[in-house]
């Protein structure tokens, strides 16, 4: 390693003087040097690794994907048992990561927006409380917050048999939260379908309304109609399929609550920690975004006679969103990446399952590569979305 350094630096010195006047050649030399160095470093590490693996006769490759995992996973979105393969176990992990990231992002955006608006409130008390919240949450490491919430779940909440019941059908215990949910019925499937249909219909309605407005100048009451379609269609479906209303109420059977929807303390603590932490950052972004739209814009909009709703919709939001969306996406990505800390509090996310896999198979290189690749994919997807969005926004911008 030392040798390669020496030779490269002397190489620089020799070539520098005669070729000083030709930036093209110099640039090529630099590039070759850089690539050479990277390749050399890569080769050095790679060859060491291969020798080490060979010497220790450590198994390599992804053959373990097909092997039986033979460990259980605490919670899973798809049916999984110890008899399934490592591949499936890892997929369960990915799904769990996606689940926590998705729910986390939705809640974070809601809470963050709310806090951001509260921060700008004219009410001194509310604004100051929001400021304190934002400052405190931003300055405490997320991992510490996760530990705190996890210990809160199992140290403070009572055991299952003495579970708190703050509302009918909701139980809080050190095994997590148990909710009553509507009992399975085909009607719900149809409702989901009609919801999607409603969304598509609204999309086309919007297009049509915009065209009509451009042509005739008439304004269609879009917001109310959209709400009516999106909410009304499923409601009508529900009524037509016999309005099922039986609830699946959790009951204490044996050790745990059965039925209803269960949120484990691990998932609850992870979600709570991630949402409370990230929302503080989102609040700052929202505040900055709203403040970025100068007051003159609102006044100008008022001057040309727009109604308050229209001002928000047509003037402020499009401008504020342009400022908000890019940093917001990066916060979403941060949340997804931070969800990997689940491994510290025992939620079976992808990192957690992968690290169990590493341990059982002893194939650390493959395991860690997998972790990196999976998160890279998340990042790439996000940045594709970002680029697409930026382009779309740029078009709007004339």
């Amino acid at each position: 390693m030392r040798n390669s350094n020496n030779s490269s630096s002397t190489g620089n010195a020799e070539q520098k003087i005669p070729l000083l006047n030709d930036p093209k050649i110099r640039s090529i030399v630099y590039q070759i040097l850089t690539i050479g160095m990277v390749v050399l470093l890569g080769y050095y590490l790679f060859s060491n690794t291969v020798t080490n693996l060979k010497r220790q006769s450590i198994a390599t490759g992804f053959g373990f994907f097909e092997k039986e995992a033979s460990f259980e996973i605490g919670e899973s979105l798809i049916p999984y048992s110890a008899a399934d393969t490592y591949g499936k176990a890892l997929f369960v992990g990915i799904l769990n990561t996606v689940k926590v990231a998705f729910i986390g992002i939705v809640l974070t955006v809601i809470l963050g927006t709310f806090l951001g608006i509260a921060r700008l409130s004219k009410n001194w008390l509310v604004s100051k409380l929001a400021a304190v919240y934002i400052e405190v949450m931003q300055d405490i490491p997320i991992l510490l917050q996760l530990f705190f919430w996890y210990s809160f779940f199992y140290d403070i909440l009572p055991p299952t048999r003495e579970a708190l019941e703050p509302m009918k059908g909701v139980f809080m215990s050190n095994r997590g939260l148990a909710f009553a949910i509507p009992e399975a019925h085909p009607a719900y499937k149809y409702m989901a379908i009609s919801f999607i249909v409603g969304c598509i219909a609204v999309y086309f309605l919007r297009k049509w309304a915009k065209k009509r407005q451009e042509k005739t100048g008439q304004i269609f009451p879009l917001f109310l109609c959209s709400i009516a379609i999106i909410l009304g269609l499923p409601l009508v479906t529900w009524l037509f399929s016999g309005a099922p209303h039986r609830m699946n109420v959790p009951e204490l059977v044996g050790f745990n609550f059965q039925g209803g929807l269960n949120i484990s303390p691990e998932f609850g603590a992870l979600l709570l920690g991630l949402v409370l932490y990230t929302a503080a950052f989102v609040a700052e972004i929202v505040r900055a975004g709203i403040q970025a739209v100068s007051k003159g814009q609102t006044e100008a909009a008022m001057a040309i006679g727009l109604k308050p709703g229209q001002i928000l919709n047509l003037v402020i939001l499009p401008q504020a969103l342009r400022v908000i969306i890019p940093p917001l996406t990066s916060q979403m990505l941060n949340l997804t990446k931070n969800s990997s800390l689940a491994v510290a509090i025992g939620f079976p996310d992808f990192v957690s399952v992968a690290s169990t896999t590493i341990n059982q198979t002893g194939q650390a290189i493959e395991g860690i590569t997998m972790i990196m690749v999976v998160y890279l994919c998340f990042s790439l997807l996000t940045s594709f979305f970002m680029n697409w969005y930026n382009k779309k926004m740029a078009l709007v911008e004339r």
Partner: protein
Amino acid sequence: MKLFKLCLVVGIVFAISGVAFAGQTFDSVKAKGFVQVGVNEGLFGFGKPDEKGVWRGLDVDTARAIAVAVFGDASKVKFIPLTAVQRFTALQAGEIDVLCRNATQTLGRDTELGLDFAQVNYYDGQGFLVPKKLKIKRAKELDGATICVLPGTTTELNVADYFRTNNMKMKPVVIESNVELNKAFFAGRCDCMTSDASQLASVRAVAPNPDDYMILPDIISKEPLAPAVRHGDNQWKDIVNYSVLAMIEAEDLGITSKNIDEMLKSKNPLIMRFLGVTSGNGKALGLSENWAYNIIKQVGNYAEVFERNVGKNTPLKLERGLNALWKDGGIMYSPPFK
């Protein structure tokens, strides 16, 4: 730019860590002047720092015995606390010379992981720890239970197998650190905890109220816990192996750290050979002739180590059971030292 990085890496490597290029572990250990041992980050009775930061435990004493064998000095050892995930790769990669971290010997680990296990220093089996108030008497009653288990261990696999063969359901809670897992269990996050019976005793010992918990009589697996070394380094494996065996042999011969100096005068050829009065053993291993004497003198025989760390007078209160000498009904047995 990469030059800078390379320099940085090289600089760090050369400036801070002692570099020891050596093929064989034994030579590199001698060159370093200490043995690097991977231990548990906090398992009462096996490997845990006490309130002054001094490491204590059965595995820790085994590690000390190895250091004594090589250097004649029990303090020439460096403990590296490792989590379950880190333990094997740390050994594979040469970060540690020997792993004394209650690791179970299995076929897969012996082959695919590139490890070699030495003499077992504790024969264990997997059991269940439950709070007494659940009124459970047998493992078969655990259907539907939430179970605390360390991820990446053989116990995690065994318990899944056990529930599958008995057609029962379970919900695992897996937390990587012992300490955190224990806390979750005591707080009632799980109905039961499963692990090696010795570990369960250790968990029970640190419970806020040990009498509230009991270990179920069912033992569902074989767990021979042994120190591990890298595959293919025979001399080093011999040294580790015989360091453990020396403690067992000493108990067999009735040699303790207290009576060892009188034993030096013994005319029993077995004892003379063992203590190096008749030379030969040390040379064969590449150690000094009094290596076994030093181990017993500084660390003690197996019985002493056992009683000091996990025996009846410790909070763990473990019986010798399988770990008694072969002549006392156990399976601890040492080949002759000749």
